[in-house]
């Protein structure tokens, strides 16, 4: 067992993040299916996702996605590249740092509008 050191927390956060993402995925599949009900209904759902509280919850999801994917890469390196297991602890800290580094710019765009920041992406994208 990992006896409460970084390895255990890596596993625990990975599991919690994964479950959170899965829960979101279930909700997301349903909300996108609203497309079948036409623009009025679908756009109401989109309006909901634009509200402040949901932007905040989206931040949790985004952090979860970054952490889960980066730690997943760490897991794959440990599993498939034999000498990497020696570096599992430093890889965990690398995952934490990269999660924060990836999270901050995306969070700026997501939560910025709540504070009136003009994030420059309000035109229709692709």
């Amino acid at each position: 067992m990992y006896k409460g050191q970084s390895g255990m927390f890596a596993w625990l956060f990975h599991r919690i993040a994964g479950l959170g993402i899965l829960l979101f995925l279930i909700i997301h599949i349903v909300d996108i299916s609203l497309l079948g009900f036409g623009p009025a209904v679908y756009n109401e759902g989109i309006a909901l996702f634009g509200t402040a509280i949901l932007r905040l919850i989206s931040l949790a999801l985004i952090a979860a996605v970054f952490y889960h994917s980066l730690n997943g890469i760490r897991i794959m390196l440990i599993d498939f590249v034999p000498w990497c297991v020696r570096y599992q602890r430093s890889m965990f800290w690398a995952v934490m740092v990269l999660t924060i580094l990836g999270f901050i710019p995306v969070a700026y765009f997501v939560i910025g509008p709540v504070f009136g920041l003009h994030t420059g992406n309000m035109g229709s994208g692709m």
Partner: protein
Amino acid sequence: MRVSTGYGPRPASGGFEAASWYFNRISAIGLFFLVILHLIFNHVTTDVSCTSYQLIAIRYANPYWRVYDWLMLTLALLHGMNGLRVVVDDYVGTQVWRVRILWLLIMLTLVLFMIGTVTLITFQPVAGSLGPNCIK
């Protein structure tokens, strides 16, 4: 006597567990790129409030967006449900409840997959008003 192969712990007995162990890792590779790009296209390059029906109509005019989203749907559902299966196996003690919950998960996966696939295949923008670009 089992000699260390130098590789990490993995299901030794082959079969379903080994296949699912490999599947989660292989699907993770695809999902890494699919999901991060999806996040960028829907939250960064355009604000989430601007991912309106109008935008989807424009995107889904190109069928490869649908393929992209369907790949994400399939891989993410299977990857996630496989992970949830492992979590259930970890915490559900009795065999009876384990079987019931796993059947529930299978049904849930099928239903969600059907809903997603039908949405992606059948979406045709309505002839009338597509609605605004950005929803305030």
